[in-house]
């Protein structure tokens, strides 16, 4: 099956737009953004209602320029979006780093109107779009390489299209699994809340144990593969 290249490029542009939107929405919900609007109101009062829109459009344009025009800087763009979302994300810290550093005035800026579920959804949106953009770009590069080597275009396009279907399927399954794990973690948290309240050790040790378990799983999955001959 052959789908024109512009369909995939439009999809890529849409994911950049969603990332920018998620980042801006997160920022717009933070106290820091309200303070920033106050700062703007003193100097250019006319643009205050459009501050969020301007930030969103600037983010989107940076993303389009880096990814679609320059075909690089996907990691940089994702980091920029996360940076924009950081004031809201950090408001969910259990460890009050700012208070420890005696920066209470700064701490006040890192609060958000979003609740935990909304923030998680926006964060997941940012990461999912980053994954999709990253692999769409990889598939496009792969397709161009194959075409440059002189392969039959109909076969190449068919592979390109089916690879995108594979990408969507894997992303959907990965998202479902992540949601299930979060739900499971929430359930475990509820159940083990009482037990954990009496836990004398650091939560870090528990987390590290989980990481090691996952790394062991990844190693096991990869090592059981035998190279085809």
């Amino acid at each position, binding site marked *: 099956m052959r789908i024109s290249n512009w369909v995939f490029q439009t999809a890529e542009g849409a994911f950049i737009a969603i990332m920018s939107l998620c980042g801006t929405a997160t920022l717009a919900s933070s106290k820091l953004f309200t303070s920033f609007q106050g700062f703007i109101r003193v100097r250019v009062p006319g643009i205050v209602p459009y501050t969020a829109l301007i930030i969103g459009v600037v983010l989107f344009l940076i993303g389009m320029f880096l990814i679609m025009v320059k075909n690089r800087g996907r990691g940089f763009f994702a980091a920029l979006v996360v940076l924009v979302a950081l004031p809201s994300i950090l408001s969910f810290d259990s460890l009050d780093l700012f208070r420890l550093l005696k920066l209470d005035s700064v701490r006040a800026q890192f609060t958000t109107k979003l609740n935990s579920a909304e923030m998680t959804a926006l*964060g997941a949106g940012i990461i999912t779009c980053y994954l999709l953009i990253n692999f769409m770009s990889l598939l496009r590069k*792969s397709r161009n390489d194959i075409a440059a080597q002189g392969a039959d275009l109909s076969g190449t396009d068919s592979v390109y299209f089916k690879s995108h279907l594979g990408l969507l399927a894997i*992303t959907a399954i990965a998202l479902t699994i992540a949601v299930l794990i979060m739900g499971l973690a929430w359930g475990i948290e509820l159940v083990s809340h009482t037990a954990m309240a009496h836990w004398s050790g650091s939560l870090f040790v528990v987390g590290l144990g989980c990481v090691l378990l996952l790394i062991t799983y990844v190693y096991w999955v990869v090592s059981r593969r035998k190279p085809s001959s």
Partner: protein
Amino acid sequence: MLTKYSLKFIAIFIFSLLLGLILGNRIIIAMSLLPLSFILVGIILESPGDLLIRKTWNSSRIWVGDTIEIKYEVTVRKGLGPVFLFQDLPAHFALVEGNNFQVFWKGWHSGNYTFAYKICCTKRGIYTFFPVKWESNHVLKLTQPHVGDSGESVEIQVHPKILNIRRVKNLKGISSVPFPVNDIARMGVATTDFREIRSYVYGDPIKNINWKATARVSSPDSWPLTNEYEVEGKKTVWLFLDAAGELEIGTNIQNAFEYCIEAANALTYYYINQGYRVGMYIFNGGGELLYPDAGKKQFLKISRHLLGLRPGMRNDEFLSAIEKSRQYILGNAPLCVIITGLDSKHADTITAGVKQLHRMLGRRRQKLPVMVVNVAGYNIMPAHRELDENARVLLKLRTRPKIQELRRLGAAVLDWSPARESFGTALIRQMRVR
């Protein structure tokens, strides 16, 4: 093994998880789960493997200019993702249809695919087709690709073009070439067909003495007379093929040397089919002699020899070639066909050689049994500029006196311009009605 893309996302997961754990931030921890689950789901899917590639094309006798279909049946049993197939084409093969680099998508189920393309053989020779190379990739390049090759190497022989014999055979008239089709050999197994009575020479069988005819000669010291019978078989054709490197005028595929080989192959085919014994001497390429013989076996022998022929660096071997073939020339009085290009600066050796052949054969016949096939190199490449056209004319003018001199010596000259006509047409023109 994981690729750098997988490792990048594992690194993102570890970094964000550690950050989330240090800050006690469940949002960051939740975000870190996505790259992890993506990689885990991805690497569960294996890249395609367990390939079986089966050759289904026929690699029998192939001629220059033929189009052949290369076809393989490919079965992929395991995995999901793209499979790349590639086969190296030997030199001098042109892709006519399809592609020798193809990509297929292996779905969930075991798949059968056809890897096929058509090629044209542009130059004679023995070529090897190596096994089909394959590479299977992970659907998202999360694991390293699997590579390999399958099947066996296939050797094919591409033979030079042969003559359309029917066109030449059915031509009515008298050939200007001094070698009629029903000419009989001087040597060979005697038949019962009477030819003439002649004087006895040492070695003649006693049973052949014609006593009655001898008795009729009244002189007592006269020499006995013997009956001579026709010998079995026809005459010998002796080909002298020029393999000088300077004949390679033109491209790698279309050059005077290749056309000389085509002419040699066509003449061998023609005379063998007429029942002649054909021998060959390849000069200017180190000197190779192929003993005269008749039959298809001889044609195959010569044809196979021509397949692997490479041009040499010498250009003065023609006289020594005649010397080395002397016993065959004197013994069989063959029709000598010299296939060469007269537009080279060393064409004088050909004239000297024809003079030597004239000394060997000329006295016995009125017309010298020598034919020179001149492969005109100046017309092979198309002229792009006026200067090219002028160079052609100059070369042609330079060749003309040499051709005239050869004709004065009694040799027939077949002036063949491969760009304008086929060898068969040129041969018909030579055998024109007088």
